[in-house]
């Protein structure tokens, strides 16, 4: 601080001049800002490089044929149709189970539950369910669905395992979406004699749909990418199905899956030409990124169409 005696004469505005102390503060600030920017970039740039490299290596095999033809020659050639279809089955069936349960559970938590110990425990359970390691989900799937429920290793068992895994995030996303609907709307409905469920069905749920959809779509990509939960519950090394037949798999069949296939041909099969696993990785990554981008776009679009 400049002391009063050192102030140059006749210039009150000198109080606003930068002092050496201020300059040092500014420098520290710039350094810090630059450092953090550098850190952020250091994560983003290698990632972009990696993705570009993956595409580059996968280029020889990327084509529509790759998607729609089956693996041949002990999976050392051909496409990934069986795995692609299997992933679609697994994702759809698992979401068919987890979406309704998840949404209704969130409805309970946000619209019906009172502030008591039971509610606290439920919330705790949701948080913990979200943190269960994927391999433990696999063990659970084996113990509960494959063995105890007698489903054997099947699409059904694997899908149910994936459903339990995707449940907590759907609950959390739905709860947030429901919570964003103002209380005043509900009170207005109750005061004209609507029941709780009528209010939820006609006002609350329709106005939370964007958040709910976002949560569900994000779990689509999660379910498509997971390997461990399906490895022992229904996904299999290799399975021959007819190309182009969308109904090739049955509920109690085992199936191939993109994530499992990537693991298999990159670690379990010798002599696979390089482009093949890169191609599989790119398809899987591409699917996930497309689905996630779609959900982001949907979120922005629905935000613009807000009704209040």
């Amino acid at each position, binding site marked *: 601080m400049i002391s009063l005696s050192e102030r140059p004469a006749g210039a009150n505005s000198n109080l606003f001049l930068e002092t050496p102390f201020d300059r040092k503060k*500014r420098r520290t600030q710039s350094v810090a800002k630059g450092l953090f920017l550098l850190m952020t970039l250091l994560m983003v740039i290698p990632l972009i490089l990696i993705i570009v490299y993956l595409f580059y290596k996968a280029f020889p095999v990327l084509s529509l044929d790759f998607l729609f033809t089956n693996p041949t020659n002990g999976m050392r050639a051909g496409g990934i149709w069986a795995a692609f279809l299997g992933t679609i089955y697994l994702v759809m069936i698992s979401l068919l189970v987890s979406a309704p349960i998840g949404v209704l559970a969130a409805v309970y938590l946000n619209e019906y539950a009172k502030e008591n110990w039971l509610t606290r425990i439920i919330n705790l359970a949701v948080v913990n369910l979200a943190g269960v390691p994927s391999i433990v989900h696999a063990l659970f799937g084996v113990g509960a669905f494959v063995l105890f429920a007698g489903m054997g290793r099947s699409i059904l068992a694997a899908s149910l395992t994936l459903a339990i895994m995707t449940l907590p995030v759907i609950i959390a996303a739905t709860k947030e979406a429901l919570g964003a609907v103002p209380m005043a709307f509900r009170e207005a409905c109750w005061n004209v004699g609507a029941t709780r469920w009528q209010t939820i069905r006609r006002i609350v749920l329709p106005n939370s749909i964007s958040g709910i959809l976002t949560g569900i779509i994000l779990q689509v990509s999660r379910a498509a990418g997971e390997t461990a939960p399906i490895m022992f519950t229904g996904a299999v090394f290799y399975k021959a199905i007819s190309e182009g037949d969308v109904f090739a798999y049955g509920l109690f069949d085992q199936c191939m899956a993109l994530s499992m296939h990537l693991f298999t041909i990159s670690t379990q099969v010798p002599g696979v030409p390089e482009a093949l696993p890169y191609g599989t990785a790119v398809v899987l990554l591409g699917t996930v990124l497309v689905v996630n981008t779609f959900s982001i776009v949907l979120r922005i679009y629905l935000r613009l169409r807000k009704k209040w």
Partner: protein
Amino acid sequence: MINRQRLETFAEPFIEWMIRLCGISAIIFVFGIFFFVFREGADFFFHKLDLVEFFTSPEWYPTSVSHKRYGVLALIAGTASVTLLAMAIAVPFGLGAAIFVSEFCSPKLKEAFKIIIELLAAIPSVVWGFIGLTIMNELIIDLFKAPIGLTVLNGGIILALMSVPIIVSIGEDALKAVPDSYREAAEALGATRWQVVYRVLLPAAKNGLLAAVLLGVARAIGETMAVLMATGHAVKIPHSLLDSVRTLTATIAAELGEAPVHSEHYQVLFLIGVLLFSITFVVNLTADLIVKGIRQE
């Protein structure tokens, strides 16, 4: 018209009953997971398990014909080493990015970064494992002249990249939760942005940031496919970053397929699952309590 009304009045209690059932489903599933996983290993647990040997012996030879040993110390060391390395990288970078995105960023850039972080989080673990197996592997062999690239270093870097999104997003939430009045008060006193962060925001958000780190740790401990593919197959306690290791998770994934159903080996693998479940349960619970602690302030 009247029928529709009657239908609604009948259906409603049923619907509400369904809603309540779904509400408690989360509790049912958490218990269910513990129950069914433990059940498969229960026999070994009650009759044959030597807890001391289990936790302190690095000798994991479940398939030995003559002398089966089930010590998981090496596996725990594997998990710990990879996790520690991952956190050593991810925490500073993640928190740095969180601070940058939250405090120093223009709104447009912020939106772009958040989208990138979201996409980063969406990358499946098997793809990360593949990256470790191929790109990272070659990089490490080239850079360090190492015999193999599937090592603690490989797994640690991959795990770090996987954990960063969680640390960034929850860390950013924690910083956002600090009331603007703190920032305004500090700036009114003449503090620069950086000083506001360093002296006011970080201390105020420290609980949330700690929770972010804990959740990152839980994620790293529980990760399976990426470490399975990136850290190699050696079941031994690592002495350097360039050693291969096996984590608890990878062990289960690698060996469950070959262990005969209900054999001892099979049961022990399930018990390792119980161990993993318990560890992540405790870490998640702690993080949750820390966050709740903030809300009560």
